[in-house]
Structure formats: structure tokens, C-alpha cells
């Protein structure tokens, strides 16, 4: 799907607002003065090299880390200061897939995916089981419902983690490096699933990724972080950034990958 087709996919309603965020641990500043908005229904990419602070930024957005300065608003509510019921209300609206899966090792895959449904809905057990099975089917894990996470490969664990993050069909889905560890076919199928969820259900997706193919397929807009800048060096449509950005870091990031893609094209043909 081309990006042009998706222009105007979101209705300009801000669901995540990051204002002047500073992320620091002790004396070490990772990010400073980071400001951007994420709109309803868009797939928003956070790009950047290793150590540029992508995961740190996401963890600030979802309220795991408290900003050293600035603030993060999710649907107008400050994540860092929200307490009790208000915090729970925010957390119910989001689903998070962690970089390493973070499945609960003492539960089967079915139990992992069922857990949020059991805790947050009044659905009967057989309905919960069916929903969990559908989610596992979506990520290609049908037949592994009763397996423990430790019995699966890293890629399969990651897919199960994606299924768990989607269990409640959250309004905002955070995906930290979803395609790493997935084979290309599953990664492409997953991209289509993300797109379908975003377009049909209006889910907002924030995806941290290194995968440029996935970025160009699913992301409406991206920001790019850079280690030396300690913040955002580019923001916008990924295709436009690739074609028009003057920033050498951005061009290097996109073009180097593009050259590798061209180099592998004949082999794949």
C-alpha cells in the first residue's frame, strides 16, 4: 500500500503528545527536548540506530520511566503523574509488545494471551479462550496454545507477545522491534495485520523498528532519533524523508539500507 493512499488516514486527533521530554539516568542524558504528536489511527514509527534512545522513549511514553523534564500525554492525561484509577484507565487503553517478548514463563501461550481478557472483561471462559486462540492464529501460532514459552523459539515467543499485546484490541499499540526474529514471510504477514488493525479498527500503532522494509510498508509518519543529537533529527513521511531529507544521518540511514535492498534484489528474483 503506498503512503499516498493513506494520506489523511488519521483525523488529526492527537492521542499521544510528547512535550519537551528529557530522558536521563543519573548524570547521563539520553534524550532531551523531544517533542512530537501521534495522531489517532496512524502507524507511527520511531527509527534510529542502536543506542539512539528509541526504547527509552517508548518506555517514557508508556509510563515505565518518569521524564527528567517535560511530559507525556496519552489521550490528554499525563502518564507520569497519573495515579490509581486514572493510571489504570490509561493502561487499559494501551497494549505493549516488548522487545524480548516478556511472556510469563509459568503460563502457557493460551494463558498468557487470556490473562488481560480475564482481568479486564466479563466474558465467559470459553469466549476468552476463543478470542485468545484467534489472536494466536493471527500470528501463526495455532497448535501451540498449550506450549510453555520456554518450549518455543525466540521468534515464536515474539509472535505470542504480539498476540498478548493485541488481546484487548487496545486503542494504542506499542511494538518494540516487532519484526526482529521473525522470518520475512511472517514479518510481511504481520505488517499486513498491523495495517488492517490500524485502518479498520482505527487503532493507533507506535512501532520502534530498524526494519526499513516494514517502515515503508506500514508507517504513515516516522521520527528519527540520533545518539549525538540526543533527540529527533527528522520527522515526517518515511518515503519523503528518504527522497528529500538533507540531513546526512537520515540519508545515510535510509540509503544504506536501500543499497542493500537493491543488491539483494536479483538474488531474490
Amino acid at each position, binding site marked *: 500500500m503506498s503512503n499516498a493512499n493513506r494520506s489523511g488516514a488519521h483525523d488529526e486527533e492527537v492521542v499521544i503528545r510528547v512535550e519537551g521530554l528529557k530522558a536521563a539516568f543519573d548524570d547521563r542524558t539520553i534524550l532531551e527536548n523531544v517533542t512530537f504528536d501521534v495522531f489517532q489511527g496512524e502507524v507511527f514509527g520511531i527509527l534510529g540506530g542502536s543506542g539512539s534512545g528509541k526504547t527509552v522513549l517508548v518506555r517514557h511514553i508508556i509510563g515505565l520511566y518518569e521524564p527528567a523534564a517535560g511530559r507525556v500525554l496519552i489521550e490528554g492525561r499525563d502518564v507520569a503523574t497519573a495515579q490509581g484509577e486514572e493510571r489504570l484507565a490509561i493502561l487499559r487503553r494501551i497494549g505493549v509488545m516488548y522487545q524480548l517478548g516478556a511472556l510469563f514463563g509459568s503460563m502457557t501461550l493460551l494463558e498468557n494471551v487470556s490473562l488481560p481478557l480475564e482481568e479486564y472483561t466479563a*466474558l465467559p471462559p470459553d*469466549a476468552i479462550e476463543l478470542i485468545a486462540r*484467534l*489472536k494466536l*492464529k493471527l500470528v501463526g501460532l495455532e497448535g501451540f496454545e498449550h506450549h510453555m514459552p520456554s518450549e518455543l523459539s525466540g521468534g515464536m515467543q515474539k509472535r505470542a507477545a504480539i498476540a498478548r499485546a493485541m488481546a484487548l484490541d487496545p486503542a494504542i499499540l506499542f511494538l518494540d522491534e516487532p519484526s526482529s526474529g521473525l522470518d520475512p514471510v511472517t514479518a510481511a504477514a504481520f505488517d499486513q495485520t498491523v495495517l*488492517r488493525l490500524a485502518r479498520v*479498527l482505527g487503532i493507533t500503532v507506535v512501532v520502534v523498528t530498524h526494519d526499513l522494509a516494514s517502515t515503508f510498508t506500514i508507517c504513515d509518519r516516522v521520527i528519527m532519533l540520533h545518539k549525538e543529537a540526543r533527540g529527533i533529527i527528522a520527522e515526517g513521511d518515511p518515503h519523503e524523508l528518504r527522497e528529500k531529507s538533507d540531513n546526512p544521518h537520515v540519508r545515510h540511514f535510509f540509503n544504506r539500507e536501500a543499497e542493500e535492498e537493491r543488491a539483494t534484489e536479483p538474488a531474490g528474483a
Partner: protein
Amino acid sequence: MAELTITPPDGATRGLALAGRLDAHSLGPVWADAKRALAGSPDRPFVVDCSRVEYCDGAGIAMLVDLLGTERRPGAEVRIEGLREGFGRLLEQFDPAEFRAPPPPREAPGSVVERLGRAGRGVWVGLYALVAFVGEALTALAGALRRPSSVRWRDVLLVAEEAGVNALPIVALIGFLMGVILAFQSAISMRQFGAEIFVADLVGLAMTRELGPLMTAILLAGRSGAAFAAEIGTMKVNDEVNALETMGLDPVRFLVVPRMLAAVAMMPLLSAFAVLIGLLGGAMVMQLFEIPLYTYYLQVVNRVQLNDLFGGLFKSVVFGVLVAGVGCLRGLQTRTGASAVGLSATSAVVSGIVLIVAVDGIFAVVFYYLDI
């Protein structure tokens, strides 16, 4: 909110109409009602009208899959009508028939004989692993004695600090209370015979020969044995142990030897400390029974011989080897996942305590025959 209305019969067709938001938070009662309505018309075609559905997420799709997948008589199939195209595409991803049967069980539990066989094999494999580990550990320790420079002494000191120095407060507390309890309980009975002075003999002998080494070893098992298992187990889960192996470095030399050396060095010291504090506890109780401190001291010194002290210290060295060895073995046997680390730590403590008590019993018999 999700709404459901049973549509009036239309000729031979029955059905229901869904409206509003079909999501996980609002579907609870609607789902059950829809299933009941479907079950109530087993022999007629059944139409689910979704034309007034505004929103349908994964839970709504699951309900439709559930309705479509319900087994029906021929000619009485379920049909979804009016579902918006986007939601329809979500629904098309699933084959309802596929979800009729429960998911396949992971593995058949097997017959009683099979399970007994598996359990027996598990015990055999465990024993084999234990023997292999003891062999490896002893070889590595012998290598360490031959070439002390090969030992990572910095690690030994760090473990010794954690397992030894940092354990002093808890060893002191337990040792003191053991001395107090032992003296108090025995003194009450002995007072009836005017034999309170022999409480010093009892406390001295019991703490030196048995309770000092035994209680210290149990504390070490609970504190450091579990820590060794959890630490090495986490390294195993994180592939750090594999990384050592693929670098050509022996995990036993790197992880086990420093811990065993530290435990062997610390256990007698901790045990002697526990004995001393226990004797102090006994002395304090004796003050209540009007036995002078010097009299108590003389009684203990005259009764407790050097071989009692060294016998106790020797036992504590053996206990140290057992606790550290079992802790490291369980750590290295850790499988994958956080729960496996917990199981290893638990197993290290349980196995450690069982071994300590069993070996202590053997020592009691051996010391009796050797007249120690």
C-alpha cells in the same frame, strides 16, 4: 454498548440483529444471549444481521466466528449479513470450522507405567548428573590447588564477602538464640536436681559438635545456596553459560570453583562464630540461674575437648562443599524461563538441607565408632 435483538421469524429463517460496539468490554452478556438464540433454532437457517454494528474488534470477530462455527444440521447454516467491508476482512482471516475442536493438547500424559518409567529415568539422569558434576568439580578443585593462579581469586573474595561477612548478623542472631533456648530449656529441668552447672557442658558440647555447624550450614543453604542457584540459573537462561563454553572457558572453573572455595573457607569461620555466640547466649542464661561467668567458662573449657571443636569444624567444611556444590549444580541444571530459576533456587535449598542432615547422621555414626 453492544445490543442484541432477536429478529422476528421471517418464513423459514430465524435470526438476531447486533448493533453498537462489539468489543471485549461490552460483549459479555450479548455473547451468551446470541449462543442461546442460535441453540434455540437448531433446524432453520440463522441470519446474524450486523448492519447496525458500528465497531467490531477482535472480540466481536471472535463471537461471529463462534456463531459461524457452531455445528448445525444441513440446511440450517448460520449466515452473517450487513457486516461492514473492513470488519468482513477481519472475519475472513479465520475458518470457523477450525475452532470447533479444542486446541490440541501438548502431550498425552501417558499410562501409569509410562509415567513411572519417566520418573525413574528422571531419578537416574539426576544421579548421573550429580556424579558427573562431582567429578568435574573435584577435578576443577584439584586443578585449582595445583595451579592457584588459575583461580579467579577476585570472584572468590566477592563470594566470600557475600556468603561469609554479610551472613554474620543472621548467624549471630540464630547462634545466640540457640544458646539461650538450649540453656534455658535444660536449666529448668536440671534445677530440680541441683545440676544447673551441667548446662554449661550441654551447651558447650551441643553447640561445638552439632548445632553450631548444622545451623550454620542450614543458614548457608537458605542464603547462599539459593543465591548460587539463582545467579548461575539466570546466567544459564541468558545464555551466559553457553557464551563461556563457546569461548572455550570451563563454566565449572569460572562459576563453581570460586563459590566452592569461598564456601569452604567461610563455613568453618561462620560455624566457629556461631559456637562462640551460642556459648555467650548460654552464659547469659546461666547468670539468671546464679552461676558465675567464670564458673561457666571453666566448666565449658574442661568439658569441651579440642577434638570436639575440630570435629565440628571438619563437618562444617564438608557442609560448605555440599551447599556450594548443590547450589551450583542446580544453577547449571536450570532450563529456561524465570520459573525455572525459581525452581532451581528452591531445589538447591531443599537438596542442600537434606544432604546436610543425611551427612550429619553419617558423621554421628562415624564419630561414635572412631570415639571422637
